[in-house]
């Protein structure tokens, strides 16, 4: 199990009183305190790490969140915010003495302004829920993490989530206009608003990707965009991972920015085809999904140029989607890819390192060698255009030695990413998973400066304190 801060005995001893106190703040069904029913809240999308919390509270309004935060602050209780619980880095992993604040009941769209192209939604609205709310009017919300069906916008803000189409449209930070949030002591704050670039310091920039450690986000104002005229996906299949990696670099290097440029290797192609029946090339070692958009003429022009580049890399096959249904199936397979790997392996660890695209071929080759050396299979499915790798290390959680091997393998991959000039995480966040690798990326001085930012918002380190930073015995420290 992963190391956690020592539970506060004073809090553990007052468990019943704390639960009774919470019951006064939210509707009856919104507090879970019995051990049996707390169990499903012990983990998120990274189920290898688990810890049953002290209690779960499910507020329905920002005011209720504020009341809960003020109460926990008074009582000295640690708080772990949670959205849909889809984090792949253990961002919502509780601590034994913590109250999990689940925001999934805050799932209403509050306002849509088509004239100024923005929407105000509660933190528990799913990512795809925003697009669904505006698509009839011809709009969409651009960042599209693969878990977009389930993951919630509050979590997207806290992890600065990306997605396949971020190559063209940017990540969450580039599509965010404002936030309503609750501070650790229960104050409600608004930052930004329905306009570009708020006055003063870039608080939005600071909050985005803060992994639930600075405040609890309850409402989000996002930019919505006009849907493109049309889009088409191309499947280009290659004889080796390294060849597909080199092709990605050639496309990006030529100055073409497709809306999406995704990579899948052989194990991933097979697992996803079994789920989505998208007509993926089962005879290839690697495949790229390349999507372009615009008018038919624009699409044709771009696809021709991309096809020319692909042809230089001795492709196994190149196929362009012929219908909306086919495109839908192609993306269904890609978006369900992590889950689909569940068909070929009982468990996986999903890495999230980002590297310069010029190093793709080399890093894919090295990952292959490392996989052979440690005896654990890898499926590669990732946002190739951004150089955002997602090697899925397959292991058997019922075999502890297999899990430890996977953890070590994962750490080696991430160290490699940093070594070639990349970073530990592209879009999943550090969470608990990459916490102890932060020292590979940052010096102790750099880490200390980051801790001071945390301390400025949360001097007692009550808000999600076990994430992002390597645990230190002398924590917490004042700013």
């Amino acid at each position, binding site marked *: 199990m992963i190391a956690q801060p020592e539970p506060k005995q004073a809090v553990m001893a007052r468990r019943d009183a704390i639960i009774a106190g919470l019951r006064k703040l939210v509707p009856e069904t919104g507090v879970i305190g019995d051990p049996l029913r707390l169990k499903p809240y012990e983990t998120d*999308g990274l189920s290898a790490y688990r810890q049953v919390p002290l209690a779960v509270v499910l507020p329905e309004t920002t005011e209720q969140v504020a009341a809960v935060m003020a109460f926990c602050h008074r009582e000295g209780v640690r708080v772990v915010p949670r959205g849909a619980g889809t984090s792949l880095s253990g961002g919502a992993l509780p601590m034994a003495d913590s109250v999990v604040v689940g925001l999934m009941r805050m799932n209403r769209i509050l306002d849509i302004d088509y004239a100024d192209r923005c929407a105000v939604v509660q933190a528990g609205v799913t990512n795809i829920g925003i697009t669904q709310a505006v698509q009839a009017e011809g709009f969409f919300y651009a960042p599209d993490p693969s878990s977009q069906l389930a993951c919630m916008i509050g979590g997207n803000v806290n992890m600065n989530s990306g997605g396949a189409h971020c190559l063209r449209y940017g990540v969450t930070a580039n599509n965010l206009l404002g936030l309503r949030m609750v501070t650790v002591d229960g104050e409600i704050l608004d930052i930004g608003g329905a306009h570009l670039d708020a006055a003063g310091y870039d608080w939005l920039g600071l909050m985005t990707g803060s992994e639930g450690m600075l405040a609890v986000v309850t409402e989000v104002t996002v930019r919505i965009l006009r849907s493109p005229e049309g889009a088409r996906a191309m499947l280009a299949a290659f004889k080796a991972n390294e060849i597909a990696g080199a092709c990605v670099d050639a496309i990006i290097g030529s100055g073409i920015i497709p809306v999406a440029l995704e990579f899948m290797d052989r194990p991933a192609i097979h697992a996803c085809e079994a789920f989505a029946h998208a007509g993926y090339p089962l005879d290839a070692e690697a495949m790229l999904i390349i999507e372009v958009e615009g008018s038919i003429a624009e699409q044709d022009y771009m696809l021709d140029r991309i096809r020319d580049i692909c042809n230089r890399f001795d492709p196994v096959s190149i196929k362009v989607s012929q219908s909306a249904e086919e495109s839908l199936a192609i993306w269904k397979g890609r978006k369900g890819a992590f889950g689909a790997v569940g068909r070929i392996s009982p468990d996986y660890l999903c890495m999230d390192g980002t590297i310069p695209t010029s190093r793709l071929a080399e890093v894919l080759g090295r990952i292959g060698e490392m996989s052979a050396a440690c005896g654990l299979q890898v499926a590669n499915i990732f946002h190739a255009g951004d150089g955002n790798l997602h090697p899925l290390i397959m292991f058997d959680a019922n075999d502890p030695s297999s899990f430890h091997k996977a953890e070590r393998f994962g750490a080696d991959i991430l160290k490699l990413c940093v070594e070639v000039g990349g970073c530990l995480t592209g879009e999943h966040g550090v969470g608990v998973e990459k916490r102890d690798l932060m020292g590979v990326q940052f010096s102790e001085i750099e880490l200390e400066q980051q801790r001071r930012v945390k301390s400025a918002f949360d001097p007692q380190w009550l808000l999600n304190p076990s994430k992002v930073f390597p645990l230190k015995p002398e924590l917490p420290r004042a700013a």
Partner: protein
Amino acid sequence: MQTNFTDAQLRDPDTSVANQILRTCVHCGFCTATCPTFVLLGDELDSPRGRIYLIKDMLETGRPATEEVVRHIDRCLSCLSCMTTCPSGVHYMHLVDHARTYIEATYTRPLHDRALRAVIAAVLPRPGLLRLALRGAKLARPFARALPRKGVLANRLRALLKLAPASVPPASPIEIPASHPAVGTRRGRVALLAGCAQQVLDPAINEATIRLLTRMGVEVVVADGAGCCGALAHHMGRHDPAMASAAANIAAWSREIDGAGLDAIIVNTSGCGTTVKDYGFMFRGAEPGLRAQAEKIAALTLDISEYLGRIGYAPTRPAPGLTVAYHAACSLQHGQKVVNEPKTLLRKAGFVVKEPADGHLCCGSAGTYNLMQPEIATRLRARKLDTIRATGADLIAAGNIGCMTQLAGDAMPVVHSIELLDWMAGGPAPEGITPKSA
């Protein structure tokens, strides 16, 4: 996902199957988003992933089921929307069915709950008793107002009375086992699951099915000895009665297969179809002869829309100028993955077909769910009717009597798709439906 069973636990074949299902789950959480109860209640415990976790814990510890766990498993509609969404291929249906049997064996429900379940299990699958009970309910309806406004029991009784149709049709002659010969040259021979509750609530469905099939040259047998498919008891965790019903059907249809032969077993109530198609799994532990029969019958079973698609349906009347809101029953779209066939047939028959938004979400009927969990069922019904009304359709068509009963009583008429298909191919118009263009 990691599991924690001992070798001794895994020697139990049912636990072993549960373990395999649990190990397929990677805890990604995609299923939560398309689960009707999670969408309404916003609690992990009322999502498929949460229930899977509760079931896992219950089975691993071997603890008897507790009130807290039962509450959340009971709230599951078994709509199987999660199985459509799951990228990993987790067989949630087999897991939750096993959990229900486990609950039935280890948990004593409150008296009123037990009483209601016993009544439902005894009455619904028996057409004679059900007809009698519905006539009684009709008489009792005016007394619904006398029920206390709050309380689980009062709410359930109110739901029970509300669902009883205003008029109970008399028994149809097709309830009697018989063979209905093909008109003209015979091109096939099928058995029809005449069912239990459906033939009482709406005998027109079986009548239309038989009319259309025989007119298309298919001999239709209502086999002697076949009856309720067992789904009702199965979903309440009543293992033995469910297996007895299924075994009776297997025996009856096997006699037909061995006799004059069967090309297919046709089901026009998709809730039942999902169960009959699962007979192979249900009898996986039976003696080899019975197991083989069960597998054969499961493989022969088709929803009426699948069969019509195969033999080729063509209308004989001009298009009626009506727009139909096609309501996809969960058992059909998620349980059997029959998604396009009914819509294709309705379009072929000359109807304009519209689909409501959030078509993947259950209407709240879910077998006996609307009797057991009236509050959630009522909210889901309202939500479904809102999205159906927004389509601007003239009527609702569905392939499952449960949904039809649940959605009835609103301004829009509700019919079974087969009634529309039969009408356009020469049969009578369904009650209350008239063409617009005529």
